[in-house]
């Protein structure tokens, strides 16, 4: 299939690849939220780590992704978009915005859903660690 220029750019030069430490280490840190979504047998796994300051602003974000080009691009784009936003602003990001920005074809929409889920899961993880109320996970797919 033919990918959009933007997907190819993210694939070749993914933004914010990495992590703030091994999963066992970051588990203990209250300034880090971790979201791991997807499954290897489904062909995509996204891991998003966010570093949040005391005011609830996302200072930094890192991702790792096992998946197709669209999945990599969606997670790379997600890190770009959430950096500098508050957690509530980040929660407002919709998968449809990712679809639009990357010009994803219909068969790749699930990649954008996964990216949205990874943001929500990482923020909820941070909220739980810091005693904030967690909104119900909406399962909209």
């Amino acid at each position, binding site marked *: 299939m033919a990918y959009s220029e933007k997907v190819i750019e993210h694939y070749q030069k993914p933004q914010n690849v990495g992590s703030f430490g091994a999963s066992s280490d970051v588990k203990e840190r209250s300034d880090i939220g971790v979201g791991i979504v997807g499954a290897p047998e489904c*062909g995509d796994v996204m891991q998003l780590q966010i570093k949040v300051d005391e005011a609830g602003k996302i200072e930094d974000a890192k991702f*790792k992704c096992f998946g197709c080009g669209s999945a990599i691009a969606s997670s790379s784009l997600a890190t770009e978009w959430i950096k500098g936003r508050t957690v509530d602003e980040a929660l407002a990001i919709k998968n449809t915005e990712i679809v639009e920005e990357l010009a994803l074809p219909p068969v790749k929409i699930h990649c954008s859903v996964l990216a949205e889920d990874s943001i929500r899961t990482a923020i909820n993880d941070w909220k739980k660690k810091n005693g904030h109320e967690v909104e119900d996970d909406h399962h909209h797919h």
Partner: protein
Amino acid sequence: MTAQDTTIYFDHASTTPCDQRVVDAMLPYFTSIYGNSSSRNHAYGWEAENGVDTARSQVADLLGAQPKEIIFTSGATESNNIAIKGAARMYAKAPSGSENRGHIITAVHEHKAVIDPCRRLEREGFDVTFLEPGSDGIITSEMVKDALRDDTILVSIMWANNELGTINEIPCIGKICKEHGAVFHTDATQWVGKLPTDVEADNIDLLSLSAHKMYGPKGVGALYVRRRRPRVRLEAIQDGGGHERGFRSGTLNVSSIVGLGAACAIAKQEMEAEGERLRGLRDKLENELMSRLEVVEVNGHREHRLPHMTNISFGFVEGESLMMGIKNIACSSGSACTSASLEPSYVLKALGVGDELAHSSLRLSLGRNTTEAEVDEAIEGIAAAVEHLRAMSPLFDLWKEGVDISKIEWQSH
């Protein structure tokens, strides 16, 4: 500029370029020798018929068959349909519309052009057993023997698998079917022209082949139909002018048939040397990748397989994204994302390799024009792309941390 100028072609199991010698043999049949080979009463027809006769002998010669046993078709899909539906309906134990019309044996990792006709026959009252291969991908004669029943009328087992290149135990399976009195069909699309065939010694009753997998044109193939010991009968699917002994009505595609014949003649001459050369290149490709990268696995039996192809999985990277990283190499993947159905390869699943390794697989198939320089370039390109993707793979990190990925509870979606 075409793809040929920029992209290495490692997808010969999908299709091959037409050999120039094949094209040269075909060309006169478009504009000079254009008669209908069925026109018995003028020179145009005789010339065309001569071309078809020569091709029929060339195909028969490659198979160890008699020319009269070769039926020309539009390709292996049609050959499979004529063979499987034709034999089942001819040898049915009960008339159309009833149940228990007879038993058919095939395998779960056959090509869809075998599986789907068998599925249709199931709906028509036949009982079909789909054998499961071992983890090496091979259907053994023991598996077939154990599945045979008193009412087994047809066995269809491919010679070499199109995704794995693995070779089933065809001569032995043919022998068992003969002893049992069941018609034996083999889809030999990937095999013919690569390794030697002898329909007599191998006890084959029906054999499908395609020209475009062996440097011939697309849209033409053949079905071998045994004529003696025993004479195999088929109920035709397509009715009409009674061409091809009534098995396949329709004006013969003379130019393409001539091309198929030429392709067979070339294969007979060259396949042994070509196979050895490609085996060397394929082994280099595999061995280099396996020595440079961790967690690389060849899918299917390492020995009993075609010499020119490999199906290889690179753990912790997804096949479609890997193919994005090797844009200059044309190949196939078992990844769900590369298939229309969004399901990972059913062939790899049949081996029990686990869905994640299916998602991580590439099929690389070399061919007549492949050079060592291309193999070297592919090794560099694939290794670099795998490393690029592993640097961003959470699964690779977990593996390095010593976490058993299969034990994690994934939040599946």
